[in-house]
């Protein structure tokens, strides 16, 4: 019963304007000739294009690998940065600087450095998504409860034990926040990489643009966001499973 009510109050409201918008666009856009806005029915048909799904798969692969690299490398860098105040003072400004580098501008350079193809796409996804992981993990690792650090010292725990049993678990909510942001960004990074080096949804969108296939571009775009949402959903699931005991609200007794 509560489930039915949740559906009514949470799921239904955002669907109403979506359906309305789709219907209005469908009715307004003329059936014949070229239009800058595609008819939703045309977009739906474009999903049948046979090159679309392999391309989506390719982009998914690059995004997931890029995201995984961001998670692993980002957390490692954060551990290093939070290990000493001096390391942090020396390198953290560069981590911030790194974030402000426009990916569109360095993507062509990546082709020179990494070569054409998947490695460049993965690198692009990684570069775009790593900073939020670093920033959130650093702030999480530096906010460990000082009383608990004292407690660990009192019982003779070394720095590795404190890291694994206290600081990292304590930083987990922050790390997961970083990963949530990184999930969407890694897909964006992958598609930007594909614009430059080719392959995946990036290529599909680029080709559809030159062929004035707005419907197909929209179909690719929707698949791209579905990918981002799927990655985000996985992080949310992990977050729910790992943090379920932290807050009383997550538990219904």
């Amino acid at each position: 019963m509560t489930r039915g009510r949740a559906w009514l109050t949470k799921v239904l409201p955002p669907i109403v304007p979506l359906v309305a918008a789709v219907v209005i666009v469908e009715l307004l856009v003329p059936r014949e000739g070229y239009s800058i806005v595609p008819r939703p029915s045309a977009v739906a048909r474009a999903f049948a294009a046979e090159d679309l799904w392999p391309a989506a798969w390719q982009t998914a692969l690059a995004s997931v690998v890029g995201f995984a690299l961001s998670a692993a490398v980002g957390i490692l860098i954060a551990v290093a940065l939070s290990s000493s105040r001096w390391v942090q003072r020396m390198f953290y400004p560069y981590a911030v600087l790194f974030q402000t580098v426009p990916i569109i501008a360095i993507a062509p350079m990546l082709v020179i450095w990494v070569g054409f193809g998947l490695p460049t796409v993965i690198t692009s996804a990684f570069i775009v998504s790593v900073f939020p992981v670093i920033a959130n993990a650093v702030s999480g690792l530096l906010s460990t409860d000082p009383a608990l650090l004292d407690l660990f010292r009192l019982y003779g725990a070394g720095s590795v034990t404190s890291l694994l049993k206290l600081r990292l678990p304590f930083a987990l909510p922050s790390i997961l926040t970083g990963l949530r942001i990184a999930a969407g960004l890694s897909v964006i990074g992958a598609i930007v990489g594909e614009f430059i080096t080719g392959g995946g949804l990036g290529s599909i969108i680029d080709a559809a643009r030159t062929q004035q296939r707005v419907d197909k571009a929209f179909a690719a775009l929707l698949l791209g966001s579905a990918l981002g949402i799927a990655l985000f959903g996985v992080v949310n699931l992990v977050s729910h499973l790992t943090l379920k005991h932290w807050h009383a609200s997550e538990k219904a007794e």
Partner: protein
Amino acid sequence: MTDHLGTTDATTESPPAPAPAAAAAVGVELRGVRRVFEDGGVVAVESIDLSIAPGAFAAILGPSGSGKSTLLRMIAGLDRPTSGTVAVSETARVAYVFQDAHLLPWRNVLRNVALPLELSGEAKSERRDRAMSAIEQVGLTDAITRYPAQLSGGMRMRVSLARALVTEPELLLLDEPFAALDEITRQHLDDQLRALWTQRRMTVLFVTHSIIEAAFLADRAIVLTRRPARVVIDHKLDLPAERTPALRTDAHFAREMRVLFDALQRGEQSP
């Protein structure tokens, strides 16, 4: 000149009763302890001499923001005096209870209580048994699989207490442990702590700003001034060894509280 020397003091008052199944207790010696914080040059503690006998239950009473916590941290070895010496037996098992429970939210009650044993490398089977017995001492056996978020404030504090007891400490340091709890829960935990001490006879140093709590729990109350902390009085409480809830309304108890209150007020006014 800061060392945890092997000095123990057995010259002053001995524990009032023979200790059944008692753990060893250690004494604490402070000589001319002074602590100045580098940033801002705040003097938190000013030349304190204290001698706490093994097995004593001493309350350290002082206004909020006096150097009570700093003093306790130095005794625990978590902080070092700027000058003077803090001497606790080097091999002493020391446990520390904070103002709030400070549990690990991702661990259930059992694993929170077993944490100190885990950190000091005890065998797994040993850990479980000892944690269970510590949990039993604070009356939380039914809650071992629950997580901190599912417990009330009083229960969390009891878990924190069990975590301190699990190593069978010879010196138990408590820093305003029950200050955040409601009056009833707090009195209940005070009773429980006193009962545990009567059983185990470890040395207990209890920091508080509550006169009633200090008088009810301790055999000796050390009243400090406001910052920088100095000793106003070091008072042996003339109260029966068995502290019943009825004692709180006893005239004799009120007199002892008066002594502490006056000392606290003198400490407030001191420059």
